């Protein structure tokens, strides 16, 4: 058998060359298909009532980013109950950023390994570029005479609030009621539990998110009072049902701090880490703070708050940390399986 060294080298060279030719044929097609598939985009997974806010934020950011970098960015939105949204991200929805209703839901995503556990320190003010609180929305004229939290537990009052198991806003609502009862003179855990149980006994429909609850109250005409995010209540009073509703501000409520975070694992995979970070940093700019105020969120920037079209009422605001010792404790005690919420709703069946 002839086995010329020169022919062996030539054969190897021909083989390698041929393989490169095949791959070279494939490469332009691959690059073309990759280019067709890889638009510069972000997915922002948010909680239920922020649709209008982020529609305007996204347009402003895209314009600012285009001016700065020349790139075109498209931001897609997903909205739903905060807890449900967090679970969806953990189940594989590839969010580049999350802008949820409460830190606990983003902590759950961090525990899933999608972002670091110290995420809340990466942006100013605990990664909460705006805040809100919980108020009551009632029918015009307040026919049922609702003034404060106890009135929601009166017999004959129909209360609309979402399900705390799925909605971050509902958890704020629940904790606001609990904090009120706990901190009022003579208040204790038993009275707080009785008040919250009485309120949920009066709830005819449990929506999955805050926007759904607004629809139930405003559009379907169900209930005497909607426990709502302040921004939702103002939106309903001024825009959705002008002249049909009025806001009742309780004597105390909770300081709701909806946080934002980059989902590092997804952003790194998409190559959008820098863009996602810039997007969230944009929320702290004067332009974005003004947009937040325009949509009835309490901006962090004083200048934006001073120039807001509505004046946010002053009321006693409790924080989650001071009353409940933080979200982890509140979640475990009240909203975990077998927690207080499960107990009071099971008892009420």
């Amino acid at each position, binding site marked *: *058998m*002839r*086995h010329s060294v020169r*022919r*062996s080298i030539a*054969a*190897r060279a*021909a*083989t390698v060359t*041929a*393989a490169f*030719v*095949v*791959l070279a*044929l*494939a490469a332009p*097609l*691959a690059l*073309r*298909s990759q280019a067709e*598939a890889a638009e510069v985009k972000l997915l922002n997974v948010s909680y239920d009532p922020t649709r209008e806010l982020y529609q305007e934020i996204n347009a402003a950011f895209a314009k600012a980013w285009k001016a700065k970098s020349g790139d075109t960015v498209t931001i897609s939105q997903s909205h739903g109950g905060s807890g449900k949204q967090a679970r969806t991200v953990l*189940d594989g929805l590839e969010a580049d950023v999350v802008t949820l209703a409460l830190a606990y839901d983003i902590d759950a995503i961090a525990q899933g390994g999608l972002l670091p556990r110290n995420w809340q320190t990466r942006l100013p003010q605990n990664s909460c570029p705006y805040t809100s609180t919980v108020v009551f929305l009632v029918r015009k004229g307040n026919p049922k005479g609702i003034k404060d939290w106890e009135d929601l537990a009166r*017999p*004959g009052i*129909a209360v609309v609030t979402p399900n705390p198991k799925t909605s971050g806003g509902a958890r704020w609502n629940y904790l606001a009621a609990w904090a009120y009862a706990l901190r009022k003179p003579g208040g204790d855990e038993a009275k707080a539990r009785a008040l919250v149980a009485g309120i949920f006994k009066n709830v*005819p*429909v449990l*929506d*999955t998110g805050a926007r*759904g609850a607004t629809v*139930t109250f405003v559009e*379907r*005409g*169900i209930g005497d009072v909607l426990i709502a995010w302040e921004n939702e209540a103002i939106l309903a009073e001024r825009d959705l049902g002008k002249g049909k509703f009025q806001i009742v501000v309780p004597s105390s409520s909770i300081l709701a701090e909806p946080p934002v975070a980059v989902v590092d694992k997804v952003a790194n995979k998409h190559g959008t880490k820098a863009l996602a970070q810039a997007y969230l940093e944009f929320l702290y700019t004067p332009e974005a703070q003004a947009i937040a105020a325009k949509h009835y969120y309490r901006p962090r920037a004083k200048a934006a708050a001073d120039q807001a079209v509505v004046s946010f009422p002053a009321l006693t605001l409790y924080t989650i940390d001071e009353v409940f010792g933080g979200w982890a404790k509140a979640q475990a005690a009240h909203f975990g399986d077998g927690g207080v919420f499960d107990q009071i709703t099971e008892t009420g069946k």
Partner: protein
Amino acid sequence: MEIRRGSAGIWMGLAMSAWIFGGAVARAEDPPAAPEADAPADPAARIETLEERLRILERKEELAREQAAEKAKSAASVAVGKDGFSIRSADGAASLRIRGYVQADAQAALHDEDLPAIDTFVLRRVRPIFEGGVGRFFEFKLMPDFGAGTTVLQDAFMDWKFGKSARLRAGKFKSPVGLERLQSATDLLFVVREAPTNLVPNRDLGLLMHGEPWEGLLVWDAGILNGVPDGGSADGDVSDGKDGEARLFVLPWKRTAIGALQGLGFGMAATYGHNDGTPRATGLSTYKTPGGLDSFAWRNDGTQATAPTAAGTTVADGRRVRVAPQASWFAGRFGSLLELVKVDQELTLGGTTDDLENRAWGVTVSCLLTDDTTSYKGVTPKRPYDPGAHQWGAFEVVARSGALRVDDDAFPIFADPARAARVARDRGLGFNWYLNRNFRIMLDYIETRFDGGAAAGADRPDEQVLLNRLQVAW
């Protein structure tokens, strides 16, 4: 109230008395009803309360529907049917399909006193198939084979899709050469393939670009593969040389309204490579008869001869070129396949080297006896087997003829003329019964005649074989 006299009036009076009396008793026995907070006595307020209850019920139903729709979006779909078992994610990005086929064959050689043929039942192929997609651009296929008591991974490849007209395939797959080889084993017209399939590669490993643009009017392939011996498969290479392989097949009238010509196609396939064998891995093949006997084999005693004697092992030693013109025509109830293959192979035994050319040709025709339609991809009966409905499936008769001719210069150095035939010519008749698209029965008679292959230059005895197949595919 006026009470009418007569029997009717008496019954009415009694009934009314009972109602009044009974109601009084009932009201005396019922506990006093507690005033309901949500059921005011005022009719207008009561109506409002009832309307609110109705709105609540409607809203609950609305929310239940939304939640069901939300669940359905993320729910995977599962389907089980005549095409197998499939699972697809809600967004369609991931899918898995499990199907397969089993071929249970029987073969009996007639007048085989002088032939080493064995009548046998055999599970020729037992092939589960796992195929699916990951994302929009990637598909895969895995097909092991447990037939004949062995386990072989026949297909294991992935496709990277660039669109409808181009894909990049990597892994182990059928070489894009032989027309009948490329036809699925479930769609063959005869139990065994024709003579040309002996000369074309079966399955090989490598990279292949391929596509079927214009809705399959053109089929094109171009790739680089390890290179396998004629008719062979391999899971690795025996030398550094690789084969370039390409095929073009066109059905020019496929998209016209001329029904009779839509299934007419022709093309050409070719391979080019260098193939260096050793006594342990010669890089050459043995050619088989339809009955599974060797019709031709190269000299191979496992040793390396140093002189051109009638001993030693013939090995591949250099260039191997295949050219395979081919055509097919399927129209209505009639089908046909035509294939020619020429293989040029440089080889060596002892100090003797030569460039030999082996050729084969084959033609197969089919005719459905029932009012059904045939195609390269098989037959689906219009009236599947159902005796109760007087439906019997589809029936088909098939015929074939072909030959494999070995280069005369192969003898006597590279092959023993007393054992290897120069020419093997076969012809056959067959009958196919398609009970439905999943189940089929085949019965073939194939006769092969030889030039040479026996001692003293005589011709080997003819082979006459009956082949039967029961096939289930899904």
